């Protein structure tokens, strides 16, 4: 019974002892150090790249767009982004050329001796900017993606509704601040270009290499080195860095390593999409939601990257976990000349869930209802449908989930205590707020069907089994839970299971490590591959008392030199139907559900907000490893509090200006409350032993829960995050007159 057990992280000892070798720890003879020559402006035409003659450039390897063997395109969803800008640049710091040298210091100093002359073109920095022809850079109107989700006939309802409540909510960019910055190593070995580095998706990297080099897959080998945090920041970007390293290694005929320092990593890599969300809601006198119109506008940055799917997840989550028969959600992601925005934990959902959960509190105030009562009247019940028409079939009782979370937080008592405290204290204000939300596990819509993920489980000659997937462990515990799932299914101890290092030369493509899909989707495939392995061994029960390990050893003894491999490939369950064209149907095989409650204290001397208590209750199906699951929740809450109150990306010419940890503030331990984590377990039919996804859910709720609490404490109406003390002071002075 290893599922549900607190198995210590399999990678824990190596990381504690410092023996885990991150890409920058890899020692390789004759390695060159690569750096990037970047655009000095947000948009323009490249006139010249000038190399200062004071430097002997013959000592350097130099690569530009002419060195690409294949098309100058980075293959992601689209191919609009060049690997190295050739004639035009679309964002500040866009890569134009690469140089490498034996000495990391010499190559860094040489950067100052390269000058890029660019004739500026007019940039767009705000996706709301009215378009004139010279600003158009993508399609007919700079729109990367449009999505409409329609249910019922909202327009007809608004005319007769007792209440119509409107609101606009704005969320900012966010930097991942993984501990390990981006790094990549490329070299030739065994007639292949080998790329090793920090990444979430080895097969995405492989696809990008095959495309840009116009070579078959077996010309490359992509290996994930231990990853010091990803949070989505290593989903799309490593493809670009891998092609850069490979181009230099190819031209130099020597190994090349790129390791960004913190400043470069913050300044040039993707961030969370900033979003602006408008709600218009019709409600009856009892507070029942009759109709919703939601419009979601995301800033995509300079190239498409993953924006269409971020928008997709964002719009699907935009109506929250509520019953409403008439909905129209319209979403757009538009180009700006900012650093391309990319994947970040939550992938569009934190933005739209912030909006709906703030808006629900605004509606409650308008109707004179307690925000908890408003939610109780509207939370989904079995048989209700979500915005896409997906039927809510879970056994989860969302009202009970809400009431349990409020009970753990002592909500009712705290509310009355705060009223007394706030009436007598000179400058401290206390409040309690919460958010109800969901997160879909796995790729959206038909995504998992297209991925057709494959997983292998191999019986080794020594009797152990090896789980072979492309799933990467970036600190979240993938390796450990996949071992637990296999051990559980095969009836062996987790010590008898090892998990292969993701390496495209020896693991199958089980899809990327993103989208809260590993536990549920890949975990289920691990179970199926175990079943296939067991079938090849023959039914265990029929062969007396021999253990699975003995049986595997016995199998090998009889067939020396052969491979014993159980396989599984994703097949869409018949119960899941999705219409991509109309955005109708089952958007996700399963949703995880949660209610988070935050208590805050606001100091009206400094307008600083401190979160003083936090309850996170979630229904994530079967919990595979309680300690790891709790860690995911606590980390997500910390990151969500950061997004709500501290982390402000200051942009200058569309690029991050405060690209240092002294000026981009993430909360530290002293800023965080006790984060009290509770699980409700309702097994899902689609995950291993009923597990669902958990990676992203915890960052969806903290921002609205905390900001709702701030609004209760101060009576300010906050519509925008991050909400720094400076922002709250401004709002306070606008709403209450001069300080």
């Amino acid at each position, binding site marked *: 019974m290893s599922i549900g057990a607190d198995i210590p992280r399999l990678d824990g000892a190596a990381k504690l002892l410092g023996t885990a070798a991150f890409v920058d720890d890899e020692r390789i003879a004759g390695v060159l150090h690569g750096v990037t020559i970047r655009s000095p402006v947000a948009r323009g035409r490249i006139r010249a790249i000038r190399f200062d003659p004071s430097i002997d450039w013959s000592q350097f390897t130099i690569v530009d767009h002419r060195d690409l063997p294949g098309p100058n395109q980075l293959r992601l969803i689209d191919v609009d982004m060049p690997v190295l800008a050739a004639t035009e640049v679309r964002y500040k710091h866009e890569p134009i050329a690469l140089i490498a040298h034996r000495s990391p210091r010499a190559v860094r100093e040489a950067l100052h001796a390269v000058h890029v002359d660019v004739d500026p073109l007019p940039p767009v920095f705000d996706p709301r900017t009215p378009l004139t022809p010279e600003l158009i850079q993508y399609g007919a109107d700079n729109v990367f993606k449009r999505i409409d989700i329609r249910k019922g006939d909202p327009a007809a309802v608004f005319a007769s509704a007792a209440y119509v409540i409107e609101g606009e909510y704005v969320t900012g960019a966010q930097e991942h601040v993984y501990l390990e910055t981006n790094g990549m190593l490329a070299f030739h070995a065994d007639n292949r270009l080998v790329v090793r580095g920090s990444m979430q998706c080895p097969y995405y990297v492989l696809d990008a290499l095959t495309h840009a080099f116009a070579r078959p897959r077996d010309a490359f080998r992509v290996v994930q080195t231990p990853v010091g945090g990803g949070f989505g920041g290593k989903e799309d970007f490593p493809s670009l860095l891998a092609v850069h390293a490979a181009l230099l290694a190819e031209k130099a005929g020597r190994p090349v390593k790129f390791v960004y320092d913190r400043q470069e990593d913050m300044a040039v890599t993707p961030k969370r999409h900033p979003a602006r969300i408008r709600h218009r809601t019709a409600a009856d006198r009892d507070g029942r939601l009759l109709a919703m119109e939601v419009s979601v506008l995301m800033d995509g940055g300079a190239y498409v990257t993953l924006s269409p799917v971020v928008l997709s997840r964002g719009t699907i989550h935009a109506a929250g976990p509520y019953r409403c028969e008439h909905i129209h959600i319209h979403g757009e992601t538009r180009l700006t000349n900012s650093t391309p925005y990319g994947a970040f934990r939550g992938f569009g959902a934190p933005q739209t869930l912030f909006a709906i959960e703030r808006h629900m509190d605004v509606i409650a105030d308008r109707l004179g209802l307690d925000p908890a009562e408003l939610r109780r009247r509207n939370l989904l019940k079995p048989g209700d449908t979500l915005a896409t028409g997906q039927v809510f079939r879970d056994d989860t009782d969302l009202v009970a989930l809400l009431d349990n979370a409020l009970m753990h937080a002592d909500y009712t008592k705290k509310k009355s205590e705060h009223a007394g405290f706030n009436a007598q204290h000179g400058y401290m204000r206390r409040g309690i707020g919460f958010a109800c939300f969901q997160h879909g596990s796995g790729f959206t819509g038909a995504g998992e069907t297209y991925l057709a993920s494959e997983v292998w489980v191999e019986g080794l000659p020594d009797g152990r089994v090896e789980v072979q997937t492309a799933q990467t462990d970036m600190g979240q515990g993938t390796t450990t839970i996949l071992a637990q799932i296999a051990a559980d299914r095969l009836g062996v101890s987790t010590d008898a299971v090892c998990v292969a290092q993701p390496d495209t030369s020896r693991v199958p493509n089980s899809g990327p490590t993103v989208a809260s899909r590993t536990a549920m989707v890949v975990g289920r495939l691990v179970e199926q591959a175990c079943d296939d392995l067991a079938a090849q061994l023959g039914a265990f029960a029929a062969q007396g008392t021999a253990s699975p390990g003995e049986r595997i050893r016995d199998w090998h003894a009889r067939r020396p030199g052969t491979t014993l491999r159980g396989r599984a490939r994703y097949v869409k369950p018949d119960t899941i139907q999705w219409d991509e064209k109309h955005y109708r149907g089952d958007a996700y095989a399963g949703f995880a559900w949660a209610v988070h409650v935050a208590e805050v204290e606001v100091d009206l001397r400094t307008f600083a907000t401190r979160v003083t208590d936090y309850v996170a209750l979630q229904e994530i199906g079967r919990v595979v490893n309680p300690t790891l699951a709790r860690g995911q929740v606590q980390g997500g809450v910390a990151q969500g509090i950061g997004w709500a109150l501290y982390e402000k990306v200051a942009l200058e010419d569309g690029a991050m200006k405060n690209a240092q940890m002294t000026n981009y503030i993430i909360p530290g331990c002293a800023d965080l409350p006790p984060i009290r984590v509770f699980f409700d377990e309702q097994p899902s039919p689609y995950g291993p032993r009923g597990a669902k996804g958990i990676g992203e859910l915890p960052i969806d709720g903290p921002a609205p829960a905390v900001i709702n609490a701030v609004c209760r404490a101060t009576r300010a109406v906050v519509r925008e995050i991050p909400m720094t*003390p400076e922002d709250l002071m401004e709002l306070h002075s606008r709403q209450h007159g001069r300080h």
Partner: protein
Amino acid sequence: MRVLTPHCLSEALDLLAGDATLTPVAGGTDLLVSWPHRPKDNLSLLDLSRLHAELAPMRMTDGHLELGALTTYWDVITYAPIAGEFPLLIDAARQVGAIQIQTRGTWAGNVANASPAADGVPVMIAYDAEVVLGSRRGRRTVPLCDYYTGYKQTRRAADELILAIRLPRQRRDVHWFHKVGARQAQAITKVGVAVVHGEAGWRVVANSVAPFVCRCRNMEAALESGLHPTGPEELRAIVVRDISPIDDLRSTADYRLNVLARLLYFAPFMPGPANA
């Protein structure tokens, strides 16, 4: 880059007399920020680490607390006699960086670096600290409140070294310090203020609100004259004449001014309705 390591104070002063480009380095906690990006070709450092016997001692004499130039924040935090008479030194020291910085960073270095955000300086000015400077030409003392002449500009001549900081012992009945950073620890000050009342009267000293850490003399005068504010705006109108805050990456001028006024208004020593 050049590093000179004298073995006694006299040698250090000789070196300084002979080379106006030398930068003294003690804890290195300011110098090493952005070290990889800092141009080093013309950097000449005077390493003070061998002068510990002459520059580190910290002592309480009849008249003064004297902090030798190599006294660290941690030395002060762990020196029991300070807690009673100069508690703000400990308050401030505990809010500098993290423990690693507190054990390396020195009070004299904080003075010498001349950052407007220096956390050690407001409390020392509030205690009427003097800077003892030494050179081949002799010794002199400069009141810390007059030490700065502009942004990163000080009265120290190129051949002078800070030898010690002296804080007079007095009867004092108000000691109050508040640092506002963007988070609880490991944060650079957005606005900070130290207030002391004693035999010498009121001292109100603010950091991160002007090109250098400064006394708020109009606020001090208002307190001397028995001010009785009815709201923070009243203090804002006074303190606005003492400071010149700016908008930067860390905060806004408006925030700095307002918060300084509000901190003072709600402070426990302030007469008025806030503490009624």
